[in-house]
């Protein structure tokens, strides 16, 4: 049972101070209008406002039903549309920060680390640029993803998959973590396969108002299918693997190859982990033959789980087509949690740093008028890919070997 840790006066002062600073920082950016807001969010808001309650019965924009329901609720707020969008996203920034701290606790982080992480998430540039400058809603689905990962690490699988469904219903990018759950199930067999079916009720939970408003049950899927074909290019403003080869917004004919490559890389990762698992079983059998009781299920370190989930998301955003600059949002946040929970991770810090800076530069070039040359962007893509390779090596060579030898990291395992 986890020991409840006491909060001290200094902690309260810090939490209040950092929350206030994070709030003022967001308040300063309240009037920033992004291209996305002007072209999409504002017209959606106006249409939904005109339609009122009937808006749930028709598709407005290309976001899924839960967010459309959120927009309808925003129209009842006594706020300008811009502020309403930003307010909702910023509230989720704070919730995300709290959840990140909680997750760090589950992973074995200290109380100080958890509290500091709360502040770090609030100040993390990608977080406040996305919500306060851009009025985007990536904090919402990432919040649910963190809830999902926390529940999963606590071995509450049904609840975890239900929440994963909720995350998926808000944004399709939540799907990047699904390979991790499949891999974890195949590798460690900690729960029954049917528990995955909890994703479905979760997926529909926030769609209920819209379905009652007249939408079909298949609509939430239809919206995502439409999204995958609506913008078609090998990459957009993201430092993906394809950024080294092709300019943004081109070469959609490569999309299928990109999907195939992504699946292949994920399969290779799975194969590597499976071979490690086989070695584990062999080692377990040898121990059993010597008279010791064989373990039914060898423990999987929570830290290794986090590493693997990071790797799965990274693989998806790196190799899949159609990637926009903010699609690595959940990856960046999970890496932040990782930073505050790993021990002796000096070699991984440059990798994390390159990942964050590359992603930040893309935010800047896409929305903040950052002058950035094409050559430098290609170099950034190269560095991003190199960082991914290093992370893969550390996961599959070093960590997997550590895990096989039974000397799993003590923290969080």
């Amino acid at each position: 049972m986890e020991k409840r840790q006491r909060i001290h006066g200094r902690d309260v002062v810090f939490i209040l101070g950092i929350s206030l600073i994070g709030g003022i920082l967001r308040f300063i950016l309240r009037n920033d209008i992004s291209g996305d807001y002007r072209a999409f969010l504002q017209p959606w808001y106006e249409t939904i406002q005109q339609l009122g309650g009937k808006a749930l019965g028709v598709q407005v924009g290309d976001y899924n039903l839960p967010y459309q329901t959120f927009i309808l609720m925003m129209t009842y707020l006594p706020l300008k549309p811009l502020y309403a969008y930003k307010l909702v996203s910023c509230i989720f920034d704070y919730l995300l920060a709290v959840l990140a701290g909680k997750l760090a606790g589950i992973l074995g982080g200290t109380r100080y680390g958890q509290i500091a992480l709360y502040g770090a998430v609030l100040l993390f540039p990608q977080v406040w640029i996305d919500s306060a400058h851009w009025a985007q809603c990536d904090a919402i689905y990432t919040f649910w993803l963190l809830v999902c990962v926390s529940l999963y690490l606590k071995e509450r699988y049904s609840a975890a998959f239900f929440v994963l469904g909720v995350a998926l219903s808000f944004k399709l990018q939540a799907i990047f973590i699904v390979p991790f759950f499949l891999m974890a199930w195949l590798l460690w067999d900690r729960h029954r396969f049917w528990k995955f079916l909890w994703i479905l009720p979760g997926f529909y939970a926030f769609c209920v108002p819209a379905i009652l408003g007249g939408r079909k049950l298949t609509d939430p899927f239809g919206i995502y299918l439409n999204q995958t074909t609506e913008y078609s290019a090998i990459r957009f403003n993201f430092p993906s693997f394809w950024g080294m080869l092709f300019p943004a917004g081109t070469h959609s004919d490569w999309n299928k190859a990109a999907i195939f490559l992504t699946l292949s890389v994920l399969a290779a990762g799975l194969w590597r982990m499976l071979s490690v698992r086989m070695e584990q079983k062999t080692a377990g059998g040898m121990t059993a033959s010597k008279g010791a009781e064989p373990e039914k299920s060898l423990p999987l370190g929570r830290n290794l789980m986090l590493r693997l989930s990071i790797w799965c998301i990274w693989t998806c955003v790196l190799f899949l087509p159609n990637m926009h600059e903010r699609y690595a949002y959940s990856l960046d946040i999970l890496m932040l949690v990782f930073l505050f929970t790993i021990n002796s991770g000096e070699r991984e810090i440059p990798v994390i740093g390159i990942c964050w800076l590359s992603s930040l530069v893309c935010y800047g070039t896409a929305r903040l008028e950052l002058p950035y040359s094409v050559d430098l962007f290609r170099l950034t893509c190269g560095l991003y890919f190199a960082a991914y390779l290093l992370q893969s090596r550390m996961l599959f060579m070093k960590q997997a070997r550590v895990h096989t030898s039974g000397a799993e990291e003590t923290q969080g395992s």
Partner: protein
Amino acid sequence: MEVVRMFIIRNRKLLFGIAIGGMVVLSIMITARSYPILWFLAGSILMVLSILWRMGSMGSMGSVRADWLSCLFLGAAVYCFPAAGAALPFSLAETAKKRRIPVCGAAFFVGLYLPGVPQIVSRRDFFWPFGRILLWLNRDNVFDHNLSFWSLVTGREQLRFGMVAVLMTLGLLLIGWYLYSVGQVRRVDFLVWTAWTCLLFLPYGHAEDGLALVWIVLAADFVILRDRRLYQLVLFLELAETLFMLGSAYGGYERFGYDFYQMAVGLNALLWLVFTYKGIEHSWKKDKESTEGM
């Protein structure tokens, strides 16, 4: 006599800088109780560079001691070279910890006014030292030839990010202060980290700001017990990058290589992150010895 008077007036900053520099090097050596000749030579070379560009940065090292004398030096340093204010958060945290804020605060303001006395006597405004600092800040651009994190986020003309940058710095310092106050970060790490954070994240910087950090890291390097390699890497990189910035800003290079500049900033930010991690790593390792760095 007139010639001597003119020389003193014209070169008062230089003379004051040499005086501060000498005092600080002496104070650091006495504090560290060590006299490594190699580092003394390196320090001398850096001091010459510092004098060439800005004098006051040397005084920023005085904050290590957090007593009235060091705060006096720090005040004077901030007057001569406002980037030396990067040492202010550490000094503030230390004086607060030792409950010396009234004495040290007063000493700081006396130090801030002392070099400005000739100007005030020559009918300058009483608030001249503050006005001078405000004048010094480059508020036409969020960053300008300095190693600024914001050059990886936005264009230099995006002035609305000035306040965002200040808040972000305050927030980061608050996180650092929190971990430091609960005894999870070593003193020496905190000193270097706060200065670095200020110089990397604060807006309206100048090319020569990095020298302040070079001096602080050099000071820290005298007394560091472990992670010496990291400190020396930081020192080397900061010096190299600052010289590169100075060359670009004042050295007569006609075309500013923006790509190279952004790469330098990226490298700097990356090293800052490594340094931050090394600092907070002590949050997980409850090693009592490691929190007693200096």
